[in-house]
């Protein structure tokens, strides 16, 4: 008779490995985080008169539009929202598994002298943000650039930090953080998964 010894030993004091997925934020959590970030953007910049939002594809653009919605609810004025694809500015293209399809960058307003809030879903190595900073400079000279992210998962490889963070989530490198949004995935939520998925 064969005994199935297929289990993993869990050292004392450590949490069980998340084989499936551990939920970090649900729909309400995502909304609350964004509302708080909207308030923080207002507070830090004392209003919206100079603020513009630029979301990084492919989920930061939706987050930026939602932030603009909350800012409008709170303050009654609207902020311009742009979208940026940083593929052509990446430093790690040569190492990418797949040569990415580039998508359009749309910043239909001048960023000259404005405060640009970059919006992304997950802050990880910091390399997309570095690419976004380079790209923004080609569009003009903003007065300041700030960074808003839904999740900061650590493991920075560049000296970059976020000004507004939805949630700090300590992770292992092999884990992946998966953000789902209504606009792209049908529902809102953030989960950590073991290994699988894109290294976000």
């Amino acid at each position, binding site marked *: 008779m064969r005994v199935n010894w297929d289990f993993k030993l869990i050292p004392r004091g450590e949490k069980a490995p998340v084989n499936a997925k551990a939920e970090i934020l649900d729909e309400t959590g995502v909304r609350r985080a964004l509302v708080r970030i909207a308030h923080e953007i207002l507070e830090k910049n004392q209003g919206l008169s100079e603020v513009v939002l630029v979301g990084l594809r492919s989920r930061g653009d939706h987050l930026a539009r939602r932030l603009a919605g909350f800012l409008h609810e709170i303050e009654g004025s609207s902020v311009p929202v742009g979208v940026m*694809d940083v*593929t*052509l*500015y990446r430093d790690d*293209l*040569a190492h990418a598994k*797949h*040569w*990415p*399809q*580039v*998508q*359009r*960058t*749309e910043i239909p307003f001048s960023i000259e002298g404005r405060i640009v809030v970059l919006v992304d879903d997950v802050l990880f190595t910091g390399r997309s943000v570095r690419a976004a900073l*380079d*790209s923004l400079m*080609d*569009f*003009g000279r903003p007065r300041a650039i700030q960074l808003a992210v839904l999740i900061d998962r650590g493991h920075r490889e560049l000296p970059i930090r976020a000004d507004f963070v939805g949630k700090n989530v300590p992770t292992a490198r092999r884990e992946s953080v998966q953000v789902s949004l209504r606009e792209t995935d049908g529902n809102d939520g953030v989960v950590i998964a073991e290994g699988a998925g894109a290294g976000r």
Partner: protein
Amino acid sequence: MTVWSRKDLLGIEELDAAEVLTILDTAATMKEISTREIKKVPVLRGKTVVNLFFESSTRTRVSFEIAEKRLSADSVNVSASGSSVSKGETLLDTARNLEAMRPDIIVLRHPSPGTPQLLARRLPCSVINAGDGAHEHPTQALLDAFTIRERLGRVEGLTVGIFGDIAHSRVARSNIHALRKLGARVLVGGPPTMIPPGIEGLGAEVAPGLEEMLPLLDVLIVLRIQLERQGGLLFPSAREYATLFGLGRERLCLGRPGLLVMHPGPINRGLEIAPEVADGTRSLILDQVTNGVAVRMAVLYLLTGAHRGATAADAVRGAA
């Protein structure tokens, strides 16, 4: 992730519809870069592109050069006159010597059909066909398809006419392939001496004349009469061509109200197309030139990705 995996762009004939669409979609993204104040992105930084032109060309060469510069590649121009070609070196020797300097991409225009295929087989770098004799001119067909799609929102289901010297035209051949793959109906027409037998085999229908063709069309591509290629053998005189086959305002009125007119350039004003048509509201001629840069940027970007994949695979194979 892209569906592009080719090292070279040699012609439209060997591409499938998904590959053509990948180039057009990428070009739509690239077009925005040319509208910026700083019209440059760093994606091909450190790549070397050689523009090897054995035939005279202004538009295509400048278009490639601008595309290369907008992607931050370093480009070098070599033309047949004033190079070692005029000293009797063979094409392959020229190419081998260039290859020894490790370019990443060679853009080749040559009067003989098939030369890009020859280079692509022999050289490890990517090769882009910028026109080989009367065979293919893939980037022209791509920019034409892009321009049509941009203006009309689609290519599928449209009827596109190509009129002029079909026999000598690589633009016609590449365009027939591209438009058919994207689901358009293609009619060709011209003086009977300029319609090659068997052109139906590419999927085009031969129309009896311009007047018969015009009412059916959404887009008309007027081809240049290549005076340098004819030796005046295929039609008696330029004036006769203009009278019988030129697209003037009266003939244009036979077409639908929304008919759009394109021309690959350079135009012979008053010969195949009247100035008031070329400069008129139906003309997309300058849009074609603008879009040419975006399409060539897209091709350069996609080939670089595929080539990188290939060299990575070679390295893995070499190590194993």
